[in-house]
């Protein structure tokens, strides 16, 4: 016989954010499992609204694909550095205007450095500054 969970206590606000990675193939099963706890009777008196909203937010998070944005952001930074240092060309280069400006500066600094025997402290400082911006 099925035993329903009841009288769960909703965790108090504010809630902290946690970044986790799961296979998308798992998402439908996770959505279905969470749905069983989205019923008001599962939560103790006074906690139903916040408890159910907690479940809904988790379901939205499972479908939001937020890691895509983080990975794309990392990829853009990699492309900027790879283009600036190694000269690799990307047909679908997607950096923003500020990144393009930094890319030009990196190239200029590297070209200037190539004509010198040792690392210029001033150029090194600028490279560090640019790295911090990226």
């Amino acid at each position: 016989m099925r035993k329903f969970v009841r009288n769960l206590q909703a965790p108090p606000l504010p809630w902290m954010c946690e970044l986790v990675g799961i296979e998308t193939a798992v998402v439908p099963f996770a959505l279905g499992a969470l749905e069983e706890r989205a019923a008001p009777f599962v939560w103790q008196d006074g906690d139903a609204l916040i408890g159910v909203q907690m479940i809904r937010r988790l379901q939205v998070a499972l479908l939001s694909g937020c890691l895509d944005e983080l990975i794309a952001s990392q990829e853009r930074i990699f492309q900027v550095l790879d283009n600036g240092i190694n000269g690799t060309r990307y047909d679908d280069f997607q950096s923003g205007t500020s990144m393009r400006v930094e890319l030009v500066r990196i190239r200029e600094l590297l070209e200037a450095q190539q004509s010198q025997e040792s690392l210029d402290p001033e150029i090194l400082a600028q490279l560090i500054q640019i790295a911090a911006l990226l």
Partner: protein
Amino acid sequence: MGNAPTAAIKLTFLDRDQNEAQVNFYVPYSTTVEQAWAVADAIAARVQVLSNALLWRIQLVWKWTADMPGPADVDSNVRRALLLLVQASDERINALLVPSPRDSVFEIDGRYAGVRVDLDNAAVSGFVSVLELPLLTPDGGAFGTDIITGGLSL
């Protein structure tokens, strides 16, 4: 296709051990909600004279059932559901489940292919017209009209 000939008035009673018992009465299907509530109240008042159990729920049920249902689609499977997540104006997120969703309502490319609902799909975007009806949550809040996402629920 047709309606049942009657609407049901269902009274549920509790005893000292929390056991439930239900008493059903039937009225013509054409009975209005107001008329049915009046009948239910009258019945409840008289039954409570006969019984010392606790009346704690009254349900009014108008039921429609297909007379001669044809075969369901060979690909249909109600164990699968589309979970649609809808945001209301008060930022609450509400949900509804659509049984046995068509494969075409899900994204077809990318890592969420077959898992996440395609918000650009005409059937999905057209569903907003349903959400614009005066729908409420069980506690009386606005259900919302903004489908923010959705996915296959197993």
